[in-house]
């Protein structure tokens, strides 16, 4: 069984403690959504999981074979066009040139980018297009663990729905594991098996919500209702500093 295991992880930037004793586990085939107020340490936690920050206390172990990471910002190479940006990870894996071109074009098109958009440099693309290029750059690697930092934040609902479908079809149903950060509770409810709620100062996980219904069986009304119930819970209201439920 493949597993990403985060145990008792704390992290500080200088003297401010950003994460305190965080635990989480993700198995293959599982989608975990990380939600929490802005600045509570979600990105920091994801960077620790990817080994981009030095782990100072606690343990992180992973036996997934390939991991792909999508940053909160696109972080595209400004001097490479969209297609070459998408292809970056494949090039690093020394895949044959022709094949790289083929797969990257295909995934770019699936992301709803037009053929001529693929030839454009990042500064010629809109924010949402850049985000899709960044997502494609991660997905094209066909990883068995996907770490996504707000992957759909800049997209319209049409594109979101389409890409949810893609994610479900190509990754979740093929037994990949996904850890994704989102600010959209409805998105978390639609896509994940488990929602981890974080609170800030210091960043910690305050509640796990398990969603038992299989992802492919979730319809809109179930999603709306579950999201509404989620928002009413005490933990969510506290964490996002909402006024207590049901007033006036």
């Amino acid at each position, binding site marked *: 069984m493949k597993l990403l295991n985060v145990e008792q992880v704390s992290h500080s930037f200088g003297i401010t403690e950003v994460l305190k004793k965080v635990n989480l586990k993700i198995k293959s085939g599982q989608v975990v959504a990380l939600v929490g107020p802005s600045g509570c340490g979600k990105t920091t936690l994801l960077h620790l999981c990817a080994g981009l920050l030095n782990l100072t206390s606690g343990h992180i172990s992973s036996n997934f074979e390939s991991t*792909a990471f999508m*940053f909160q910002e696109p*972080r595209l*190479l400004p*001097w490479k066009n969209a297609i070459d940006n998408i292809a*970056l990870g494949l*090039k*690093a894996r020394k895949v044959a040139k022709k094949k790289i071109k083929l797969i990257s074009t295909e995934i770019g098109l699936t992301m709803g980018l037009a053929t001529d958009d693929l030839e454009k440099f990042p*500064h010629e693309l809109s924010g949402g297009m850049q985000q899709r290029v960044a997502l494609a750059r991660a997905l094209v690697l066909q990883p068995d663990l996907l770490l996504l930092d707000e992957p759909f934040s800049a997209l319209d609902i049409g594109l979101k729905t389409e890409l949810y479908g893609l994610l479900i079809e190509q990754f979740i149903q093929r037994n990949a594991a996904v850890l994704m950060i989102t600010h959209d509770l409805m998105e978390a409810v639609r896509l994940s098996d488990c929602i981890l709620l974080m609170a800030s100062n210091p960043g910690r996980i305050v509640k796990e919500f398990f969603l038992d219904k299989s992802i492919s069986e979730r319809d809109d009304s179930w999603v709306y209702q579950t999201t509404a119930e989620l928002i009413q819970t005490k933990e969510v209201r506290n964490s996002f500093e909402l006024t207590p439920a049901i007033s006036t």
Partner: protein
Amino acid sequence: MNLLRLWLRDLPAYLWSGWGAISSLFLLLALWQWGNQVYGDLVFPAPLDAFIVLKKLLLTEQARTELLTTGWRAFAGFIISIIIGSVLGITAGLSVTASIMSRPIVTVLVGMPPIAWIVLALLWFGATDMTPIFTVTVACFPIVFVGALQGARTLDGSLKDMARAFKLPPYMIFLDVYLPHIISYLFPAWISALGMSWKIVVMAELLATSDGVGAALAVSRSHLDTSATMAWIVAVVGLLLIIEYLLLEPVKRQIERWRNE
């Protein structure tokens, strides 16, 4: 090869955009003509006279040899300085200590007047090719060095992380992540260095050698031949304009297509 193709493709459009540049050059010529009318032929020969002398000059075997000699000295000094300057600058830029340490040295090098280098070079190398080449090298080196240093210093940390997350091998990190950024700093520095090399080489030759354009200028000065002097100046400046605007500038545009204007 690809660069060459793109260069050829964009050349016509680029030349067309050059009309503005040409008209401002003509403005300069007009100013020159006006100077001639105020101060007279002896001080300020008319542009036309200078061009006639230049044409005659260029038809002689000797003038072409002088130009070639000067060209080769400037080019040699330029190439040496961009190789050493780029390599050292990048290396220094990648280390914080080295870049802090090199700052004062660069300030000294920039502040050192070229004429002082010429005197030193004369003492070390005598009236040989080495004197102008050396002077050009030391004069251009700090410009290139600073460009390379800044390019390497300003590498984007977030892209470095990205390269790590995608497990790029070291050669790709250098070629795909570092180099394009550094080149965007290096190339303008190379262009300034080229202009500098032209100026310095003529000055070094004027003082230190018996051949080359600088030496020819010295001769025309001793003959009080202002038309010939102007003709040589036009030749030197014209060559620089041609190299810079026909070769380097279009290449720069191609390399930096990814930048938003």
